[in-house]
Structure formats: C-alpha cells, structure tokens
C-alpha cells in the first residue's frame, strides 16, 4: 500500500435545488466517488463568485467544479444562465493565463441525476489527479 499517494483536493459548489440534491441521491444509491470531493452548498450556482474559485485555488485546491440545475430548470429561473456566462469567461481567462483548463468545470446535474453526479465527480477527480498538484495558481504561503 502506498502511503503518500497523491490525492487531489477538489471543491465542488452545488446549488441547493438540483445538484446538491443530486449529490444526496448519489448517496442514497450508494454510488461511490472519491472523498477528494468536498461539497459546498449554495442556493444557486449563480451565487458562486469567481473570487471563491480563485480563493480555493489559492488555498491549495487542485480542482474546482460548479454544479447547477440544467438550463431551463433553475429554481430561480435564470440563475444558471448567468453562471454559464460567468464561468465560460472565467475558465477561458484562466486558460489564457496558462492555468490548466481541466482544473475547472461547470456541470449541470439535476436532482434526479445521482448517477451523473457520481460519474462526473469520478471523472473530474481522475482528470485532476492526472494533472497533479495545482502549482500555477497556488499561494506559496499556504503551502503546508
């Protein structure tokens, strides 16, 4: 058994109405995904300020994923549409700065998609793990 196997740190922002419920459903169905994923509940994906994402990277997160209701299904009708624009531009900008584009992701997961939630997290965790540690956007002072 490898003791110091690298495990990525992944922060997942999930909207309360769809994706958080989707994550709960994944739990109800006992669908495994890595414990690297830590979920933060927000009322709507549009509550996720790009600053939160940068903050997570600063503090040593290796990947950040935002999950919200599918377009058209937002509990607040239009929140996820704003999220979609904000994240499209932010992700593009991070890539432009030379941050690996695979470290950020936006996914639509409904309350019924427990399986999709687990699959998404498995895939994302694997992708991020393959990239290794986030070195380009970390704050050296926060290094443990």
């Amino acid at each position, binding site marked *: 058994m490898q003791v110091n196997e690298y495990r990525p740190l992944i922060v997942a922002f999930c909207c309360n109405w769809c994706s958080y419920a989707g994550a709960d459903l994944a739990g109800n169905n006992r669908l495994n995904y890595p414990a690297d994923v830590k979920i933060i509940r927000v009322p709507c994906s549009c509550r996720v300020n*790009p*600053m*939160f994402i*940068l*903050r997570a990277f*600063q503090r040593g997160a290796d990947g950040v994923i935002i999950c919200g209701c599918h*377009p*058209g299904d937002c509990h607040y009708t*239009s929140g996820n*549409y*704003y999220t*979609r*624009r*904000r*994240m*499209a*531009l*932010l*992700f*593009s*900008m*991070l*890539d*432009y*700065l*030379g*941050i*690996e*584009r695979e470290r950020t*992701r*936006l996914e639509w997961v409904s309350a019924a998609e427990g399986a999709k939630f687990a699959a998404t997290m498995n895939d994302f965790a694997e992708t991020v793990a393959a990239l290794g540690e986030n070195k*380009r*956007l*970390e*704050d*050296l*002072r926060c290094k443990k």
Partner: protein
Amino acid sequence: MQKITRDQIVSKAVSLLQDGTVSAVLGWRQGEFCYDVTPSVFNTAEDIEANFVWNDFCGANFSKYLVSKTKNIDGKLLVFLKPCDTYSFNQLLTEHRFNRESVYVVGIPCEGMVDISKVKAVSGEGIVCAESKGAGLSVTTIYDENPKEIPYAEVLSERCLNCKSKKHVAYDELLGDEGEVIDSARFDEVEKLESMTSEERFAFWQGELSRCIRCNACRDVCPACTCEKCVFDNPNSGAESKAPTNSFEEQMFHVIRAFHVAGRCTDCGECSRVCPQNIPLHLLNRKFIKDINSFYGDYQAGAEVGMRAPLVDYDLGDLEACDVFERRDSE
C-alpha cells in the same frame, strides 16, 4: 499631427466659459517638459489661454474624473473627449456614476497619442523638445541638438496603433469632423497568446505580472473602476490585498480586476498607459472582449447609454462553459 489645433480648443473653451454655458473646464495643463501634461480644472479664461495644452501627449481619459469633479459643481463642467473617451463616458452614464446634465461634452478628433517611453527608446534620455512635424515627431535632446525625426508609427502608443474607433459616441458639440468605427487589429496579440501552449502562456504572464508593484495605478485610472469601495481595499471582501506577496497575489489582483470590468471595459487602454512597469494589462481586458464577442455576439461597452452588459445578460442558447475551448480552438 492632431487635426484640431490648440487654438481651436482654447477658443471653444473660452467662449463656452464666457457665455456661461459652462462654469469650469476640464483640460490638459502644460507641465515641466514638452511631453508631461496634467489633467486639470480651469476656472478662468486667462488660465486657459496661458496653460491649456493640446498636443500628441494628451492621452489621459477624462471620463472618470467626471464622477468626482461633477459632485459639487454649480453649472456645467466642460470636458473635451477624444473618441475613445466617449465610450467610457457612456459606460459611466449607463452605470449612473454621474449626472449627464452637469457635463458639457465637446468631442475632439484624435489622431493617436504618443507613448513617451517609445520616443525615449529611440531618442535616448534628455528630451528637451518633441514637436509634431509632418508625419512624425521632431525630438531634440540635451545630447543632440540636431532634431531627430521619428515617424509616428514608431512612437504612437499601442492603443492608438490599434485604435478601435474615431467616432464619438457622445457629445454636445463636435469640433472637427466625425470619424468612423475602425476594424482594428487589436485582437492580434490576444490570438498570438491563445495559440501558445498553456505552459508558454503561463510563462508569459508570470514574466509580465511578476513586475507588478501593486501601485494600483491601473485600477485608479480605470474608468470602469469607480467603486465606492474597491474589493481590494475592503478587509471583508475576501480579496483584500495590498502587496505582491508572491506570484499568486498579482495574478489574483489582475484576474479579479479584469473580471470585474469584463463587459464594462471599453478598451480605452488607460491601464496599460499608466502602468509604471509596462505590463500589457490591456491584453487581459481584450481577452474578455474578444471572448464576449465570440461567445455572445459583438459588444462594445459604452457604444450607447443604457446597454445591458453581457455579464448581466444571457441567452437561452448560450455557449456551454465546456465548449469554450472548442469554440476557440476552431476559430
């Protein structure tokens, strides 16, 4: 090389001041050297006639000053706006940052402004005179009394070489002829960066941003940065930062700032002009502008008053975040 002369502007300012249309004039004041020009409020005709200057170094965008200078003004403030400045002007009006009624705008055409550091790169230090002569600047230094003629193409600032518009989008009165929106090559540099590998881009930005000294000049000059309290000054914002502690902080500052002005930035180029470290900050803003144009359709902030900025708008059929790179790679 400016098409409009100082005399035309001065006489316009003096007559508007004397006929009571305006009570003060925001303009450029001559400094120590031929190239140093300070934005200034003029209250008397004598002052204007003596110290008002209009030359190839009048790059400062006055729009932002209107936020503070119109606060306690009796009557109207006269402001001279170059075409690019008028976009900032409209954007500020869209955001209700000052009262249109307290400003009298005279649009003035602009043939591009000179970047003095580019001049010095050619002429060397010790400039005593830099005058417009034909298609270039005639520069004299302490070390060389024979004027050196430098073509404008070599010394115009980057933003002027890539001028996006010679058209005024706001004015009460126009001096000279109206120009056109220009199909500029301003995104070429962005595209060049985009075509690099991720590692190359990272190295590029590390190199550029590591020079940042967090003087905040880019923010403080930016017409889109007129927040009552900036997040970087607010200990409770989660983004407060004051000094470049390591590479992350500078990136954080510039990314957040670029994001905050995304969709509101008119690409006036003041950030890059004032940066004491010559960081090409406009390349961040232009990236957002280019992306917005490509993802959501062409959008020029400040083209009209009251436009809905792309980040406070949406379309049901918007591009998915995961398709962003596909879109770009296919371009």
